[in-house]
């Protein structure tokens, strides 16, 4: 239990002397502490005895039982007996702080500055807390008063999950506030920490793509946020660049938990209608209802590609087109590369091209990426969810260790803020699927033609100039 102070390397005299001295000091301390504890204990016992006596006098028969007398062995005797490495003094117990509960505050504590954007789940605006002057993002939950199901479960889950989260790469929920009229709760606002940018807008406006070192920093932060979520049994289910926020100190935070939920092991049956189409994993497109953290890793892979090119990686027009794009990039699934895929609901009717030109096209599409980069990219975009790395494994990947090293966050370039002043424009990215929507039926689809154009595609020469 207690750590031994004895060093394995204490072989010369000087060390031994030093150690003896330390030991002596420690024992002295221990002795004092034990004495103090003894005193306290004696006091306590006296008090207890007095209380017990008082209670016996004034108590009726059915009153609460008196305090239980000590039944466990005395700690002091153990200590006075004194093995040198025993427990020193009072035990150190962990205290768990869970906070308190009470009513919401009013949104009137905040002063609205300007609107930022309108998303699928609510409106976001920038606001200032009146008492502290702190700038925050206020996200108003969209509530349909005609919905006889009550408050939207997505919004409630988002609040629940964000309240539980505490990680530097996950956006912080400071509190939830409501409109002034509390007789009817119609206006609910999430008070989130304010970050200047979202990654999507930055990518859209950048004249030059991110440097390799910058991509690594961003990706590393994303992976560490995702690892935290998965460690806590949370699936985000809508990772995309517009949901990743970036502040002017180079810090990335995952936001928008409108699709997120807690899961267990074994994974429960979940809706396949999650994740914005362009970032949706193939198992979801093929109708899997039991899926896990690997869907977030697929999205992470898509974001990786987008960071490299500034363009969303797989911009399908619909579910079938998205699958086509995926197979074009990653190859067609076979019993070898993805053993159980034929058993997925939407996979039965698929007609796939005869296996000739399969295999991943990532190496060819990203000729400037290092071998380690390609390896990571390929593994994130593995068709078989079981073959994708976990977020933790991703963090340990060779890619982050090689030169160029991830750039320090403080050295990250800054960007002109859009959220600061004018209204952000509405995106042309598709939105995450809405609740209650019907899942697309992918019936018998013929994919056999998808590689017909591939031969004409330009191939990389197998080498390229290194640009650092």
């Amino acid at each position, binding site marked *: 239990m207690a750590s031994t102070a004895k060093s394995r390397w204490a072989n010369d005299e000087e060390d031994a002397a030093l150690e003896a001295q330390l030991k002596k000091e420690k024992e002295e301390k221990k002795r004092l502490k034990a004495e103090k504890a003894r005193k306290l204990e004696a006091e306590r016992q006296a008090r207890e005895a007095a209380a017990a006596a008082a209670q016996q006098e004034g108590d009726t028969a059915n009153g609460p039982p008196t305090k239980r007398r000590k039944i*466990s062995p005395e700690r002091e005797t153990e200590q006075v007996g004194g093995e040198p490495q025993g427990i020193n003094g009072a035990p150190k117990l962990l205290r768990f702080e869970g906070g308190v509960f009470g009513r919401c505050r009013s949104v009137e504590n905040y002063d609205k500055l300007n609107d930022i954007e309108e998303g699928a789940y609510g409106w976001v605006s920038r606001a200032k807390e009146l008492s502290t002057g702190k700038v925050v993002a206020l996200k108003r939950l969209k509530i349909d008063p005609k919905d006889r199901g*009550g408050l939207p479960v997505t919004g409630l889950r988002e609040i629940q999950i964000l309240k*539980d989260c505490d990680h530097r790469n996950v956006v912080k929920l400071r509190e939830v506030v409501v409109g002034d009229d509390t007789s*009817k709760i119609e206006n609910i606002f999430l008070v989130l920490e304010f970050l200047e940018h979202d990654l999507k807008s930055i990518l859209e406006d950048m004249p030059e793509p991110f440097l390799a070192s910058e991509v690594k920093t961003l990706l590393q932060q994303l992976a560490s946020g995702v690892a935290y979520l998965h460690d806590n049994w949370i699936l985000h289910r809508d990772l995309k660049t517009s949901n990743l926020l970036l502040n002017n100190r180079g810090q990335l935070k995952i936001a928008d938990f409108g699709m997120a939920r807690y899961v267990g092991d074994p994974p429960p049956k979940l809706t396949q209608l999650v994740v914005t189409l362009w970032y949706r994993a193939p198992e979801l497109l093929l109708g899997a209802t039991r899926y896990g953290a690997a869907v977030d890793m697929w999205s992470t892979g898509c974001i990786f590609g987008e960071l490299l090119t500034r363009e969303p990686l797989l911009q399908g027009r619909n579910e079938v087109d998205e699958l086509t794009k995926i197979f074009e990039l990653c190859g067609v699934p076979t019993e070898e590369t993805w053993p159980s895929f034929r058993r997925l609901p939407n996979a039965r009717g698929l007609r796939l091209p005869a296996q000739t030109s399969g295999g991943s096209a990532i190496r060819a599409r990203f000729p400037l990426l290092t071998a380690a980069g390609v390896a990571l990219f390929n593994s994130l975009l593995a068709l078989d969810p079981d073959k994708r790395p976990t977020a933790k494994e991703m963090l340990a990947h060779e890619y982050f260790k090689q030169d160029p090293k991830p750039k320090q966050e403080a050295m990250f370039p800054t960007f002109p803020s859009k959220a600061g002043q004018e209204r952000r424009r509405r995106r042309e990215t598709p939105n995450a699927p809405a609740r209650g929507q019907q899942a697309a039926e992918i019936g018998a689809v013929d994919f056999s033609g998808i590689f017909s154009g591939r031969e004409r595609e330009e191939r990389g020469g197998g080498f390229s100039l290194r640009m650092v």
Partner: protein
Amino acid sequence: MSHMTNPLATPDQLFQRRSFDSLPIELQDTILFATQCLTQAAGILLQLPQSVTAQANVLLARYWLVEPIMSHEFSDISAAILYLTAKLSPHPRSPRDLSNVYAYLLSPSTSLFHPPTSPPPSNNPSAYYLSEPAYQAFHTRLLHLEAHALYTLSFDTHVALPHPLAITYLQALDFLGCGGMASSKERIGQRAVRYLNTALLSPQLLCLTSQPNALAVAAIYNAARDVGAKMPECEWWEVFDVDREELGFLVVGMRSVEGWGRKMRADLKGMKMGVERGMVTRADVEAELRRRGLSVVVGNGRVGGGGGDAEEEAARRMDEKMAEMETGV
């Protein structure tokens, strides 16, 4: 760490409970006890796992430390919080299911709050038949109270139950598993869980004043003593970060709930008087207050004298009429 911590009641909140409504504290205890039992019964009929119902119990107890107990009908707030908890869990239930279950549990046909000695009440389906307007009115109240409960609790629905921790601790103490001693080991586990479930009804609000690790340790301690299991000689609870004083308090608190609950049932019977037994309502409490010669104060500050019931009843009927008209359109 969130699965090991709960927000706890502040001393202020616990103190305030005595000043709310000028409602005698033992009446508040009775109401809490009855409503927690009602929630449990509803959870069973709705086939919800105990983990969900127990969370609803904790949230309900928290709610009444912030909101005066007489502000809303007790059964309504029980239904709303159970609805909300189920919605956030993997086992959502529809308002229709809830309304049916609560209509049944509030009808004379239920055996809830029925003394176990007397013959079970006769089943009279027409007594818990729910007319469409009555359902609509219930539904509206449900949604209103769902939002209100969330507001009252700052949207913090996090509840860390002690049950899973107790299982882990039992495992650590080698009290789980199926060796040769399987039966007594099983009994310890069972009893520990029973103590934890009983603690949800505690008038001392144990689940609001102690963290789950302490509750779990106390339940195991009690269970092991009941079964006569051999416990470690040392102060084993310190391994689970519980000190002796807290443990002692919880052990006594948990053991006292059973006897107290029996007394509560007797009290409830007294309060309902007459043949019609069942869930205690605000009207019952008001009548009881009048009997004791205390003024009747309804939660929102309205002083309802003699006409309180009639007024309430009229309002309720009007609500139902309105709902009927709306659905008719």
